[in-house]
């Protein structure tokens, strides 16, 4: 409870801190929403001109973007500190988290607030709303969407922890973590019908990109309890693995003496 109380308090303070710079705060939110909308319009034109691939319609693409944007937004708004791990470890700013009496991962995650990710949350909710309307979702499907948002957020968080934990293995890991994150995120935004055979296997089991949006859309569309079980098991597996990797990685921390400032 104490950990949760502090985490919520830290998020509140981060929002206050971001809101101090109001113009930047609003520009970030609006900018990210416009960016995402442009992306979905492009996919809409693509599906209209190419037609249905692997059973995926425009509605499914909107659903996919909704799931991906929402879990991205949730993780990288409240837990934006994870994205800064490479910067923290390279500069030695990570020291201050080691001196905190709180859970290290929670402390790092809540050390920063991603304002632009609020735009992703808004966009994700709107997309999933449109998706629900387009597929004329039943109550069962709506409940599945809610559950799958939670599961895909867990996968996204786990993947982010694993990727940014590599910061402890390199002197300045900013570009490495950036590339690894792109490797994970980009396929998760692609048309789900494009992933078949070996590609589907790799991006489900080795790199969990399809667990973010493609598989949740297929689960809602087909009401597939088998796939729901698979996604749940993989989400739990990735979460346990990510925590273990992070704990081991922290022991490699070497610190440094750059001047740093901040939460």
């Amino acid at each position, binding site marked *: 409870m104490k950990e949760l109380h502090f985490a919520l308090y830290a998020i509140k*303070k981060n929002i206050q801190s*971001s809101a101090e710079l109001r113009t930047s705060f609003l520009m970030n939110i609006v900018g990210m929403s416009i960016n995402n909308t442009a992306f979905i319009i492009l996919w809409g034109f693509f599906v209209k001109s190419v037609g249905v691939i692997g059973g995926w319609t425009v509605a499914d693409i909107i659903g996919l973007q909704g799931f991906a944007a929402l879990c991205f937004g949730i993780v990288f708004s409240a837990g934006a500190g994870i994205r800064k791990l490479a910067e923290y470890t390279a500069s*030695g700013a990570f020291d201050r988290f*080691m*001196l905190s009496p709180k859970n290290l991962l929670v402390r790092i995650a809540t050390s920063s607030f991603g304002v632009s990710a609020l735009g992703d949350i808004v966009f994700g909710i709107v997309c999933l709303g449109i998706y629900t309307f387009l597929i004329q979702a039943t109550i069962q499907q709506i409940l599945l969407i809610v559950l799958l948002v939670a599961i895909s957020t867990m996968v996204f968080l786990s993947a982010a922890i694993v990727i940014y934990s590599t910061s402890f293995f390199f002197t300045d890991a900013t570009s490495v973590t950036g590339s690894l994150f792109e490797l994970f995120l980009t396929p998760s935004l692609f048309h789900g019908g494009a992933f078949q055979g070996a590609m589907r296997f790799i991006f489900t089991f080795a790199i969990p990109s399809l667990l973010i949006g493609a598989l949740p859309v297929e689960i809602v569309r087909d009401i597939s309890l088998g796939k729901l079980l698979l996604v749940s098991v993989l989400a739990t597996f990735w979460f346990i693995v990510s925590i273990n990797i992070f704990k081991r990685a922290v*022991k490699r921390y*070497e*610190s440094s003496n750059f001047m740093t400032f*901040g939460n």
Partner: protein
Amino acid sequence: MPETKEIVAVNDISFSVKRGERIAFIGPNGAGKSTTIKMLTGILFPTSGTVNILGFDPTKDRKKLAYQIGTVFGQRSQLLPNLPLTDSLEFFGVMYDMPEKEIKKRIVELVELFDLSSFIAQPVRKLSLGQRMRAEVAASLIHKPKIILLDEPTIGLDVVAKKSLRDLLLKINKEENTTIFLTSHDVGDIESLCDRTIVINHGVVIRDLPTQDLAKTFVYEKYIDLVALSNFNNFPELPEGIRYSSKDKNKVTVVVDINKINVQESLKKLLYLFEVEDIDVYNANLETVIRHIYERDSTRN
């Protein structure tokens, strides 16, 4: 593949500290001071050996230990830059699970003790360095830690801000019996703040003694001022073990290496060479003594 080399930052360091002591942990750049502090606080994991602070092993009980210690890194801020200072103090209070009432009470105490009232409502990024350092120390004391570890807390501060910070540290040591463990390159911090000094170089403790004994123990040189009876017109070559420190027609200062020649013999030879009105014999200041300790140790390695 790039060639890698393993460097031993700290080797076979051993010391213990009593409650309420004020320790200066000094050494030249790269000696291992920060590494030691980071091991004491659980930031770094030693490859071998044990650390025990207040009954906790920092590698295993990092979180429990954090409730009992406070840390200040002169080159690193822990405060929230965009929010008023009061928010940072409250933030740390919540982080240490203090009840709201207690946080408010402690903030009032710290504001009074550290004289923060004139800038408590200002965003931290707008504070001067001196104000910020006072705020950093205040924030580190919000939970009344038993030990405060400070890594170069006076770096970059002007003389007034330095004195103010030292006075505050002495005050909390006296009033709250907080143990102070400090690294600094500033002799003033050591002289005015610490009752014990541990000298480290190349990752090894080379001296551990009361600060007041530091000068006495490490006096290898004496300074002698010779005030001219009329004027010094020439400056003759000095005997072995004695060298000029400064030459002036009114006053000459010489440095005597007491390993080569004792003071009595030096005076005899100097009085033979110069006609003097007054003589003053004194030890080197602490800064010179510390420099000699570092230099002596580095030539040994």
